[in-house]
């Protein structure tokens, strides 16, 4: 203990009502502080103040977003209610996938810490989301990540990106979780605010769900895992809830440090504990550490808890109660264990050499009481910490420049016309950082571990086998895709959010899986800016409406505000993850083109849509107009066709069309399968529009000649436009657009693969 430290107790708080407390420095507003005093009937102790400040931070309380996020619950489509075992509000949503199995998945941001300390920020982002999944009672089985950085050639991107990628890899690889995909995008607005969104998916018996609640007076509260140290103190409130400018260095100690080996052991230990049914409730320690775990467990359970903070195992003996309560040391969990199960619980922890300590007891007093050195330092109703934080209806205003932005449609931008110009455009686009080969990143992630990875990046979605059937039976699996497009969302947040959802949905269906549920990570600027709040409200409405139209529920997610540098916010970036299920992973469809003579079909309608496109960005550095039209009924139809075609063996390959348009998709599939193709521009379509438009609701598929009639009949019967646009030519080893240009695969590959290694070494 530092010599000048003076313990503040509940007794002292009653006796010294005017004792000054640094509530502003902890991020609380005067009104919020007044409310705390009203709740307690006295001033808070400094420990209570620490707890309220972190629990009422934007990051933990969702105070600016709550009124909007309610839509996700209210708009759950009726057909989704049967599969939704756990919805919004728990650590992660859980859906029933049949065969007695359930799947839980969630995406979460770790943006601010990853800017300050890229490696540890990204690493602990993975660690945090994995613990959320574990907490539901599930074995984590895969991770994905959606990451965004400033301009690729910017000096600071060269600092942040390699660290983030190494951090994600370093932690995930050491946990033994395959990384099966994600996103990488660059835009100057992310320079001071990179986005690191990590997704984890886990599997559990449908009847084995664990919840975060402290039920049963007399049950033990056990803290287990790593010891509590001084890292990440106040991370939640200081880092995640206020934007920072050039203060990164000073705040460095607020970023947590990860120990993946400890987490790996913790996972195995927890799974053994779950299998033996030894806990009544469990919560991981993430943002706001012990403050959050104790108050949430107590609030959701019988209602009270007594905790002796002296018993918390410490890494640093000089920590004082306020610090112990706020510490965000990683790899810790808190369980509620009935007295008759404690011995067995402790035995399993010992086998895995995991430190486990009883630090408290569940009570029915309705109070969360904490003691330290024999003095009572916290005595508060847990619900007021966990659930009854402030809720704000922040002012909302359509940004002044929104009309101007939409009005500058960019139709006058010079377009390539000749074959030679189109060829140059194709090569320039494929080599641009957003469209270039991502192997430099994904080769740093283990995609093989656990031996169930059926598809991984760069496929349209990652796919994992859940049920292994060596006798040749059906092998149940899941597919996952995460997508977002900040430029579309900037142009129209409602449509942009729907487009992100549509793309992830389409990606899942492209691989042959049926979309089932949604998670989302909403990355925005400051909620105190009415323009940003408008973007946020519109985007939430877009995701909620979109899910309703697609008939799939939002099961959870995360909001990250204050992603801005000075007064300049990032592009509004809702990142949407869609989970799908596939009855038999043997029937999946990959994106690699193969099979000589296979027929290339373009599904969906192609219009002249270049608002927010990769072409406008790369060729002209231009952002304006409207994003592509989104038609979710069409997306459903397209998905049905893709899933049926996959199941019935009517297609050899499929790839969704998104950023960069048709040429990009065809090029990626040709390079993946090392197969050439001859393309014919359909009648009535301008070659430039055909090749580079980003119209949504489209995919390209390879149909073997023997299945052509069955396939086209199905599309005709269902009313899905399908146009034959070319044929695979294995010997050709080039992409030839008839009458326009020809690019050998060798040239294409070198343009595509050189970019990221050239930038990042």
């Amino acid at each position, binding site marked *: 203990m530092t010599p000048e430290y003076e313990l503040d107790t509940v007794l002292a708080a009653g006796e010294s009502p005017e004792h000054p407390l640094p509530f502003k420095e902890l991020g609380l507003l005067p009104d919020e502080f007044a409310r705390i005093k009203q709740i307690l009937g006295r001033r808070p102790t400094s420990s209570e103040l620490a707890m309220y400040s972190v629990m009422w931070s934007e990051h933990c309380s969702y105070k600016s977003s709550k009124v909007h996020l309610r839509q996700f619950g209210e708009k759950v489509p009726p057909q989704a209610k049967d599969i939704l075992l756990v919805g919004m509000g728990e650590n992660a949503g859980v859906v029933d996938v049949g065969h007695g199995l359930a799947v839980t998945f969630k995406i979460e941001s770790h943006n601010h810490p990853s800017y300050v300390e890229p490696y540890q920020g990204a690493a602990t982002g993975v660690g945090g989301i994995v613990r959320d999944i574990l907490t539901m009672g599930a074995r984590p089985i895969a991770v994905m990540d959606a990451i965004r950085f400033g301009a690729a050639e910017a000096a600071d991107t060269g600092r942040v990106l390699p660290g983030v990628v190494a951090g994600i890899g370093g932690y995930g690889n*050491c946990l033994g979780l395959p990384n099966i995909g994600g996103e990488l995008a660059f835009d100057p607005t992310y320079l001071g605010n990179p986005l690191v969104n990590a997704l984890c998916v886990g599997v559990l018996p449908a009847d084995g769900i664990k919840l975060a609640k402290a039920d049963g007076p007399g049950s033990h509260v056990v803290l287990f895992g790593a010891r509590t140290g001084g890292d990440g103190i106040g991370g939640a409130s200081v880092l995640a809830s206020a934007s920072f400018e050039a203060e990164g260095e000073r705040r460095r100690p607020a970023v947590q440090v990860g120990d*993946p*080996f400890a987490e*790996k052991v913790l996972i195995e230990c927890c799974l053994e504990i779950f299998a033996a049914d030894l806990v009544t409730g469990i919560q991981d320690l993430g943002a706001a550490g012990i403050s959050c775990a104790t108050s949430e467990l107590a609030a959701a359970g019988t209602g009270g808890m007594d905790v002796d903070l002296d018993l918390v195992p410490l890494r640093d003996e000089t920590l004082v109660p306020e610090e112990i309560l706020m510490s965000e040391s990683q790899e810790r969990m808190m369980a509620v264990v009935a007295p008759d199960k404690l011995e067995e619980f402790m035995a399993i922890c010992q086998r895995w050499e995991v430190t486990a300590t009883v630090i408290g007891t569940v009570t029915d007093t309705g109070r969360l009481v904490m003691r330290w050195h024999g003095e009572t330092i916290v005595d508060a109703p847990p619900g007021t910490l966990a659930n009854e934080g402030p809720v704000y209806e922040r002012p909302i205003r359509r940004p002044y420049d929104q009309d101007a932005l939409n009005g500058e449609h960019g139709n006058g931008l010079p377009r390539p016309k000749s074959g030679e110009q189109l060829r140059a455009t194709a090569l320039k686009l494929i080599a641009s950082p957003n469209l270039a080969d991502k192997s430099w990143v994904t080769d740093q992630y*283990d*995609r*093989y*571990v656990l*031996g169930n990875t059926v598809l991984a990046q760069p496929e349209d979605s990652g796919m994992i086998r859940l049920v292994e059937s060596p006798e040749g039976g059906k092998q149940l699996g899941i597919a996952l895709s995460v997508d977002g497009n900040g430029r579309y969302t900037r142009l129209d947040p409602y449509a942009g959010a729907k487009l992100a959802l549509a793309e992830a949905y389409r990606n899942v269906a492209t691989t042959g899986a049926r979309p089932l549920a949604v998670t989302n990570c909403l990355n925005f600027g400051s909620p105190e800016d009415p323009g940003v709040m408008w973007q946020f409200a519109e985007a939430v409405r877009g995701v909620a409406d979109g899910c309703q139209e697609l008939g799939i529920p939002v099961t959870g997610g995360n909001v990250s505000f204050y992603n801005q540098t000075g007064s300049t916010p990032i592009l509004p970036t809702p990142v949407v993850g869609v989970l799908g299920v596939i009855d038999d992973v043997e029937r999946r469809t990959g994106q690699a083109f193969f099979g000589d003579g296979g027929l290339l079909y373009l599904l969906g309608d192609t219009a002249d849509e270049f608002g927010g496109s990769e072409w406008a960005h790369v060729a002209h550095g231009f952002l304006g107009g409207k994003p592509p039209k989104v038609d979710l009924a069409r997306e459903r139809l397209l998905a049905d066709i893709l899933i049926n075609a996959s199941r019935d063996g009517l297609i050899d390959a499929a790839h969704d069309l998104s950023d960069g348009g048709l040429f990009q998709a065809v090029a990626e599939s040709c390079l993946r399968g090392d197969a050439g193709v001859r393309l014919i521009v359909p009648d009535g379509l301008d070659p430039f529009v055909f090749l580079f438009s980003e119209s949504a609701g489209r995919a390209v598929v390879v149909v073997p000649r023997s299945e052509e009639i069955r396939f086209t009949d199905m599309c005709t019967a269902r009313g899905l436009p399908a146009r034959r646009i070319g044929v695979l030519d294995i010997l050709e080893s080039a992409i030839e657009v008839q009458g326009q240009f020809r690019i050998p695969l060798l040239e294409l590959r070198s343009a595509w693969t050189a970019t990221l290694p050239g930038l990042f070494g």
Partner: protein
Amino acid sequence: MTFPGSLDDRDALRAIRLAGAEPVLLWHGEKWLSDVQAVVLPGGFSYGDYLRCGAIARFSPAMESIVDGARNGMPVLGICNGFQVLCEAHLLPGALIRNDHRKFVCRDQRLRIERTDTAWTNGYQPGQEILIPLKNGEGGYVADQHTLDELEGEGRVVARYLGDNPNGSYRDIAGISNAAGNVVGLMPHPEHAVEDLTGPSVDGLAFFTSILNSLVEQA
């Protein structure tokens, strides 16, 4: 064999099962090897490996028995981290250091099988080229000139990388054996290439059918 930080132990179990043998999980804290006839040390990070890969694992109770067994001719295959453990335990010469490009690398790697008379590679043709996953952060095989010459001279280089050297290993060495040929260390992962569905090929399966063959022949 499962250390607390083993990651590919389930994959190794699956590969052994697909090869037709009966896999048994061994626990790092137990000395007794039950009655297993061969041991696979899987990939992963045994005890976290913050010190040096495999440096702590070699002192585990189970490793004592494995070292004894290996010296008495029991077949042992160390994959990736398992290879690192075997080097640390001095069952194999040399060491594995951080990749020369300083990054973790995961990719499908072409190899040439150079020695086919070991317990683990008798199912391959001499010089056979195979494609199996490689994934490591510290996979650069190093040894002094004398040791390298000795390995080459005695034909103990079991597999060599083809194409770009992925991690800076001396003489493109991907795997080696001890003099007797019962202990093999390999940096790439044959257990990830045993099913068409999940691997880049099924070229890895022969490591596991090889051991079964050699055990059956002995019996």
